[in-house]
């Protein structure tokens, strides 16, 4: 199928049709389905961790499932298993669609994706068995990290090749973000791993490196992936032109210039100038946030408002992105707040709210097109569950965190009471995580149903028309 389409491209100058690109990118279902499996695993682990926060005797005899293991495992399964993998897959598809080229390098992508999953598995087993490196978001031990990085090399190069294979013409903001993210991630990851684990720097320098990495992972890598998705899908679904290319340009470059500087907050035992730089950068980062939000909001306003259930995913994702930018400033300036539930609430709002909803919306859009099947089952329900889940979770943690901070800075309240008075919020957040689990399972179910239908359609056409299939193939590709 690939051969026939690429040969048609070389003989005729007309770019391939969208359907043609989609069917050439069918291999992306592999990273997408596996990323959804990781998403379900991550949310189940988050559920266990959440229950343990208010009922500490649950599962206390298992060293694998202690809070200190489940919490980082849930986070890493989300960031590396789901967000990075699905983000790369969606990014590849966006590159193909925007560049109007069929997918280049299907086989390496498949191999890269398999090894990526192997890396995440090794990494998570390492965390559960206590072989963590001890640094946030970089917990994967040696084996997991190396496999991850090697397979990233393959996937990243494939993505670059796809960017190169584009038809000549003006590039779109999504392409800028994807291209930048493709470089940022390996640089961040290798620098941090080298300086923290392979040739560790001394003392609090580790804190500087790990803070720089965490911030880069969120503000450069994940934000870029999320914004690439939003900038592509919001105009597409609301059927409007992007409101302003210059606003997108300002947002992109201000993020690139200042994105790497935030991340340090008051109270860390670091030189004062680093803390001030971090706080200042978190304020300056409101510029790309506001520019992007205004740009996309106005785009939505211009749109014809086609009643598509998927727009909700991207809209709420955009709102979560805006809120995270504002809360980051709170975190940087209000003493103790970063150390309460608030800090984690912002983190999860960013991950599940902004990145998660954007990618889930994209996956719901991609899945029927990649499989060539129709099935709208669960889209509405999973969207509602995911949105309300993250809303409940984030609200509980943010409000609980603020109350906790109020009590913490009042030295007369004993610490035990501070924690026990936030129990109610933690229970609410458990409910939120439960909703997230349900939403994630529904999404996985829908995509699996589509894949099954696709396989059945493929098999039946092969079995029933085994002999003339050679002749029919080009027709199938054109469809």
């Amino acid at each position, binding site marked *: 199928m690939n051969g026939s389409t690429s040969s048609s491209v070389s003989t005729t100058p007309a770019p391939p049709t969208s359907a043609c690109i989609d069917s050439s990118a069918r291999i992306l279902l592999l990273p997408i389905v596996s990323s959804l499996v990781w998403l379900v695993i991550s949310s189940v682990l988050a559920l266990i961790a959440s229950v343990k926060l*208010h009922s*500490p005797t649950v599962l206390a005899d298992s*060293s694998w499932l202690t809070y*200190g293991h489940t919490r*980082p495992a849930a986070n890493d399964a989300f960031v590396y298993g789901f967000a990075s993998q699905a983000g790369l897959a969606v990014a590849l598809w966006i590159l193909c669609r925007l560049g109007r080229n069929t997918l280049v390098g299907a086989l390496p992508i498949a191999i890269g994706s398999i090894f990526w999953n192997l890396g995440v598995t090794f990494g998570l087993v390492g965390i559960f068995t206590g072989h963590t490196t001890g640094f*946030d978001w970089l917990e994967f031990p040696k084996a997991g990290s190396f496999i991850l990085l090697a397979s990233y090399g393959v996937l990243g190069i494939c993505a670059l090749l796809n960017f190169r294979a584009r038809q000549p013409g003006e590039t779109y903001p999504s392409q800028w973000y994807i*291209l930048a993210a493709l470089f940022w991630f390996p640089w961040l990851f290798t620098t941090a791993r080298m300086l923290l684990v392979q040739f560790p720097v001394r003392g609090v320098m580790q804190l500087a490196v790990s803070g720089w990495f965490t911030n880069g992972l969120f503000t450069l890598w994940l934000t870029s992936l999320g914004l690439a998705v939003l900038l592509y899908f919001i105009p597409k679904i609301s059927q409007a032109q992007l409101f302003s290319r210059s606003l997108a340009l300002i947002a992109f470059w201000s993020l690139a210039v200042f994105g790497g500087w935030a991340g340090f907050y008051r109270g860390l035992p670091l*030189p004062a100038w680093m803390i001030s730089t971090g706080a200042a950068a978190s304020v300056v980062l409101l510029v790309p946030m506001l520019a992007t939000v205004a740009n996309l909001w106005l785009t939505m306003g211009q749109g014809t408002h086609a009643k598509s259930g998927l727009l909700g995913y991207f809209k709420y994702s955009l709102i979560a992105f805006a809120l995270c930018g504002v809360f980051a400033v709170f975190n940087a300036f209000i003493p*103790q707040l970063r150390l309460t539930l608030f800090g984690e609430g912002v983190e999860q709002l960013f991950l599940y709210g902004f990145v998660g909803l954007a990618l889930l919306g994209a996956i719901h859009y991609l899945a029927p097109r990649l499989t060539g099947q129709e099935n709208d089952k669960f889209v509405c329900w999973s969207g509602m569950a995911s949105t309300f889940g993250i809303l409940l979770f984030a609200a509980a943690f943010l409000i609980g965190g603020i109350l906790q901070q109020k009590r913490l800075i009042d030295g007369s309240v004993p610490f035990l009471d501070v924690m026990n008075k936030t129990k109610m919020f933690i229970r609410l957040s458990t409910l939120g995580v439960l909703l997230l689990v349900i939403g994630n399972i529904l999404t996985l179910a829908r995509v699996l149903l589509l894949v099954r239908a696709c396989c059945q359609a493929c098999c039946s056409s092969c079995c029933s028309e085994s002999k003339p299939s050679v002749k029919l193939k080009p027709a199938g590709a054109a469809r």
Partner: protein
Amino acid sequence: MNHGPLIFLGVLVTFVMSWWGLIFAPQVQIGVQQNASLVDGIYPRPRAGLAEQGHHVYVANGCVQCHSQQVRQESYTFDVVLTAPGTNNEIVIRALGKIAPGINAGAVAAAATDQKPQTILTNVPQGVADDAQARLKKAGATAKTLFIPLGVDIARGWGSRLTVAADYLYDQPVQVGHSRLGPDLANYGQRAPSTKLILEHLYDPRLTMDKSLMPAHRYLFETKPVGKKPSPDALALTGKFAPPAGHEVVPKPEALQLVAYLQSLRASAPLFEAPASPAPQP
């Protein structure tokens, strides 16, 4: 913006800038930091073997997910104490009366020694403290100005001063933490109860604190049949925490290492960049 190389170049330059600013520059500034020389030796000292192993247990079990190791200081104030009244009692008493009219100058001057410094002024700004010290020096007495760090963490008893870079020189990986679901542990070694109580707290925190939300770490312990005679370090558990009859709960080596590490946690030595005065009363 239509050329890949342009974007690549821009991204590379911005990335290298942030690397230069936040990794390279601090490495030059604090990466080569050496131990401080204090009156009673160098600070910090490398941990003893068992505690160092305990650090790995602490890391492996993700204790950092709930416990921070950072004490914050929001402001500071000064106290002035008299350590020796000198020889001219009358002038000293007059000076004391001027500095702090509220105190019983005679009794203070009589009682002041190096071992029992008498507080003259509390909670004053630096200028006032310096002034008082100068006046007393003129009168022939010896006074000291004490630096008193203030802050919520310090009020909670989590430390006597803020934590600074020097405190973490021997930590690999550094476990400063990002969350305070549990109390700060930067100075746990100073306030730690006996080994037995820490072990009980690890086995099930509800043993020592009724309302604790800390997860139980029973997997760090072994429940085994009692041998010919009970193990010396078996936990004394009663009631609902008791093991089945004929069994005893013994800490695994990891538990003992972890306790040794927890007991080694103290970041309180007064440093140039983080002065603190020894607490006058325990």
